[in-house]
C-alpha cells in the first residue's frame, strides 16, 4: 500500500507561545500529496497560529517543519534562506485568507491579481499572462469579461474565488486555508465549497484548512485534527472523528451542530 511514498509536509513538535499564552504546543503530523486535513476547534484554540507556523510567517519556539521540494528531496524549512522561502511561498504554496482583502490587491484589476503571481516567477509575455489569467477566472466561475474590474467592486463570493485563482495559478502543491468560507452567504458558500472540492481533487492539492464549521470539514477533508487550548486533542479520519468522537471537547463540538 504505497507506504514508501514520502509525505509532502512533516511537522514535528511545533510550539509557539506569546508571552505566557501558549498558542500551539507540541504539534506533529505528516501530510501527503492529495491529502486534505481540517483543523477544527473554537476561536483561541491556536488554529490560526498553526497556519502561520506552517507557512513560515511565524517562527516556532520549538519543533521543526520539513518539506519535500520539487526535486524530491525533503528539507528542513528552518534551514532555508529568505530567498528560497519566498520562492516557495510564491510558487509551491498558496495561502487563502478568510478576508480576501488580505490575499488580494484591491486597487489593481482581477487580471493583474492573477497575473502578478506569474510575473513573480518570471513570466514576461503579456498575452500569455492575460490568457492564463482568463482561463483561471473561468475555472473559478468568474465571467472573463470582468477581468479588468478591480476586486473592490466584486461581491464577497467573487473576491474569494479570485483569491483562490490567484493562489492556484502557479500550480502550488500545498495550500493553506484559513476559514475560506466563513463570512459568505450560505448559497455562495455552497458554490465555493463545491468549487474547492473539485479543484482540490483535480489538482491533487495537499491542503490544511482551518475551520470552525464541521460541515465544511466533512465536505472537504479526509482527516481532522481537533485543537483545544493550543493542543491537538483528537485526530483521525474525518467521518470517524465526527461520527464517533472520543474526547469530551470533540463530543461537545459535534453535539453543538444545528441540524437545519
Amino acid at each position: 500500500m504505497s507506504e514508501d511514498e514520502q509525505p509532502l509536509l512533516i511537522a514535528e513538535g511545533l510550539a509557539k507561545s506569546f508571552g505566557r499564552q501558549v498558542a500551539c504546543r507540541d504539534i506533529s503530523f505528516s501530510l501527503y500529496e492529495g491529502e486534505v486535513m481540517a483543523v477544527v476547534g473554537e476561536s483561541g484554540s491556536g488554529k490560526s497560529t498553526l497556519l502561520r507556523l506552517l507557512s513560515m510567517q511565524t517562527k516556532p519556539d520549538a519543533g521543526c517543519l520539513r518539506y519535500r521540494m520539487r526535486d524530491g528531496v525533503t528539507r528542513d524549512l528552518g534551514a532555508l534562506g529568505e530567498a528560497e522561502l519566498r520562492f516557495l511561498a510564491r510558487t509551491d504554496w498558496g495561502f487563502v485568507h478568510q478576508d480576501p482583502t488580505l490575499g488580494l490587491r484591491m486597487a489593481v484589476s482581477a487580471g493583474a491579481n492573477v497575473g502578478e503571481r506569474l510575473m513573480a516567477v518570471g513570466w514576461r509575455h503579456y498575452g500569455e499572462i492575460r490568457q492564463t489569467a482568463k482561463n483561471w477566472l473561468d475555472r473559478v466561475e468568474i465571467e472573463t469579461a470582468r477581468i479588468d474590474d478591480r476586486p473592490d467592486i466584486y461581491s464577497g463570493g467573487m473576491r474569494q474565488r479570485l483569491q483562490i485563482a490567484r493562489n492556484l495559478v502557479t500550480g502550488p502543491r500545498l495550500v493553506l486555508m484559513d476559514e475560506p468560507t466563513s463570512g459568505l452567504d450560505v448559497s455562495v458558500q455552497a458554490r465555493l465549497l463545491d468549487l474547492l472540492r473539485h479543484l482540490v481533487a483535480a489538482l491533487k492539492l495537499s491542503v490544511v484548512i482551518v475551520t470552525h464549521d464541521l460541515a465544511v470539514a466533512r465536505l472537504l477533508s479526509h482527516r481532522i485534527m481537533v485543537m483545544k487550548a493550543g493542543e491537538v486533542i483528537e485526530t483521525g479520519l474525518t467521518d470517524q472523528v465526527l461520527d464517533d468522537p472520543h474526547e469530551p471537547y470533540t463530543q461537545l463540538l459535534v453535539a453543538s451542530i444545528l441540524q437545519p
Partner: protein
Amino acid sequence: MTASLELRDVGKSFTMHLQGGLRLSVLSGISFSVGAGDCVVLDGRSGLGKSTILKMVFGNYRCDSGKILVRHDGETVDVATATPRQMLELRRRTIGYVTQFLRAVPRVPAIDVVAEPLLLAGTSPEVARNKAMEMLRQLNIPETLWRIPPATFSGGEQQRVNIARALIAEHPILLLDEPTASLDAENRSRVVALLAARRAAGTAMVGTFHDGEARSSVATRIFSLPERSEAA
C-alpha cells in the same frame, strides 16, 4: 488469511462525556468471517449493534478491541489499527458501503454522485460517466433526474442513487445497511437481483436486511448477535 473479511473478538463501547461519562457497551466478543461469494446477514433486534459492526468495518466507528482483518491487494490489513491513509485506500479499492441514507452534497448532480468512487479509484472521467449512466439505468432512475442533485429526490430514489454509488466501483467487499428499506416492490426486486448477481460473481457481503425476500435471495449465512444485559 483466506477470507475476504474476518472479525476476531471485536468489542465496542461508547463513552458519552456529555452525559456524565455514561459508558454504553454495545458489542463484545464478536467473531465471524466472510469469504468471496458469501453474504453474512447480521441478525438481532434493534439496538444490538448491527449497524455499529458495519460502521466499524468501514472505519467510520473506531474499534476498541479485537481485530477487523481485511484482505486488500493480497495483504491483510487490520482496520482496528489502520492509519487514516490506509483506511482511505481500503475504501477506494476494497470496501464499498451502502448506508441507510444518502449524504447529498449541494450542487452535485446524481450522475456525478454515482461516478465519484470510480474517479477516486483512478478511472478516466468518460469511462466513469458511462458506467454511472449504466448503473443509474440498472437501478431504474429516470434519465430526467441524472443531472439534478439528489437532495430533492424521493427516499427510494435517493436510496437507489446510494446503491448505484456503492456498487459502481465493484469492490470485493460490500457492506449493506438495510439496502432495500425504502424501496417499493419492483425496485426492491431489481436491487435484490443486482446484489445476488454480485455475490454470485464473488463479492463478499455483510449486511442487515429486514426484508424477507432480500434475505432469502442474497444471504448465505445468518450471524445472530448475542443478547447482552442492559446493566453495563
